[in-house]
């Protein structure tokens, strides 16, 4: 299996506060990894470092053969290959759903408008909101917005998808529709790193689960082992609280 993301001794501070402590993580192509842990443990910061929405201060992050650092030119090119779905959807409220999906392909990848629209409709079809394409984000429900955000990220045809608590801002009855879309994506063979508290999703989809606490990776294990016999005390405690 080829490694697509490699993090070596990554450290990050917000002022005096150290958010990430010596993170070592390797993700292979087509691997699906779920990152969990108590809030404030640095999970979101970890995946935001992968597309450099946050800058790490020490260590090495290599994404698809490119090292991320201040010297990295064309960080946009790397970001275009790494899709991201956010907790708050972050759709562009001034554009229709279709325009949300075609904006980046047209202006970043220089796809012809017509082709971009075809692709966008295909992706919207995949997440079952093709009929909402002409509407504005404000007119959609939370679950629909999150699926639109997923479609928007996929329109860039990324190699890696990052999910930052994609269901945390949703009402319970909408969580399933988003998770279903993510499961379909996983089955299609996407490389995924998912920060989530949805353990059901983790059991169904993830190859491996990473447990983080206080900025450190406490435990990393195959999904089955992780839930069946967690090794670390903190992991056990966390799992007993969440399951």
């Amino acid at each position, binding site marked *: 299996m080829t490694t697509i993301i490699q993090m070596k001794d990554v450290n990050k501070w917000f002022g005096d506060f150290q958010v990430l402590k010596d993170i070592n993580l390797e993700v292979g192509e087509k691997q699906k990894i779920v990152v969990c842990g108590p809030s404030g443990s640095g999970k979101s910061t970890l995946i935001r470092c992968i597309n450099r929405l946050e800058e790490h201060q020490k260590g090495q992050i290599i994404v698809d053969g490119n090292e991320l650092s201040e010297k990295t030119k064309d960080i946009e090119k790397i970001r275009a290959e790494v899709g991201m779905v956010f907790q708050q959807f*972050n759709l562009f409220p001034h554009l229709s759903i279709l325009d949300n999906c075609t904006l980046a392909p047209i202006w970043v990848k220089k796809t012809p408008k017509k082709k971009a629209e075809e692709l966008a409709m295909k992706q919207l079809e995949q997440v079952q909101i093709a009929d909402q394409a002409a509407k504005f984000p404000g007119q959609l429900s939370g679950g629909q917005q999150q699926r639109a955000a997923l479609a928007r990220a996929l329109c860039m045809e990324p190699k890696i998808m990052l999910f930052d608590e994609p269901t945390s801002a949703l009402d319970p009855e909408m969580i399933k529709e988003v998770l279903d879309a993510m499961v379909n994506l996983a089955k299609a063979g996407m490389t995924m790193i998912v920060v989530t508290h949805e353990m059901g999703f983790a059991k169904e989809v993830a190859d491996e689960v990473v447990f983080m606490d206080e900025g450190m990776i406490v435990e990393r294990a195959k999904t089955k082992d992780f839930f069946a016999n967690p090794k670390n005390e903190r992991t056990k405690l966390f799992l007993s609280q969440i399951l």
Partner: protein
Amino acid sequence: MININILKPNRDNFKVYLYIGALLIFLSIFDVFLRSFFNLNFASFLPDFVNFLLPLLLGLAGLQMIRLEYSGVKTVDIINKSVNNNIFNAGLTLLIIFITLLALPPSLNWMIFDANISGDSKEACSSIEGACWTYIKIWFRRFMYGMYPNEFHWRINLAFIILISFAFVGFFAKGKYKNYLTFYYAIAYPIIAFLIIYFLISGGSFGLEWVETNAWGGLSLTFIVSFFGLIFCFPLGMILALGRRSELPVIRYISIGYIEFWRGVPLITVLFMSSVMFPMFLPADAFVDKLVRVIVAIILFEAAYVAEVIRGGLQALPRGQYDAAKSLGMGYWKMQIFVILPQALKLVIPGIANTFLALVKDTPLIFVVGLSEVVGMLQMAKTNPKWLGYAMEGYIFASILFWVICYAMSRYSQHLELKYKTDR
């Protein structure tokens, strides 16, 4: 059995309260109406003090009688809720109605019935008590065109007609031409406007006689100054706003310095310096037209205000919008142009409209450098020895002009707000 307690209306007999109350209110307003319009006082037999307060007392009693929550009559409910919810507001409502009624006849008399507009010289106004609109009529061309020679006024008219028709190009653009509209309005249109004004109003070529900018004036100058002020201070303000939020310290500090400097000085000094001090720094043979200097000064000044308004909009956007744009691979400019600015500008339409209105109303200040737009011409006409004593008419005329212009701009900004509203 009907139980009427004036101070405590109740629902059971509401009809009775309503009729008596309405009658009392009618009497009170009718009394003031008669006093104001026909100088009649049907209660003059009462002692002076009571007579004077009678309408107020009647009105308050009437409003008291109809003040009941959920009366069931829609109009009464609206009145009660909005102007009659307690005795203090009822009193204020009545006073406002009374003052309007009392002020109406004298102002109508002055403005219309006793006024003169048909005359063609000052003598027509000598015998009348009302407004002398003849004065406005005779000076009209000066108020519109300043000291621009009478025989060339068609050039200004034609220039403005062309400018306005070019502004409407956007309505007719269809299909793929729509993509070029932003370019057209942001870059091409200002250049076209400048060329038209330069060749047509300024003249000096194509057989048109040269008219120097000192002679320009009146409302047309107001338009020219406001027009260039508006279209250039906006992009400059936008760049400054982005600059102030830039991560590059040099750009950020230059922007902050610029904004704080221009916001700190009064416009009148800026205009004065542009006209008096600036030429001293130029080489002896260099010459920049006074009007151009003034317009540039206004643009630089107002851009600082526009920048701060736009910065307010930029700061109102959640960080998630930046994250999303970046995560899709957009660079700084693509992110600003397609994601951030469209949303931020939409948010600040009211603030921008505010700044633009202030700009239009600041244009009279250019009189300090000897340019006379419409208010400046008014000052000139007012102090003309032949036409002393008609300042009031002039200022009313100017107020109406400015009000119409500003109100139109205000309505347009509201239209834009609605047009770009996508959250519902």
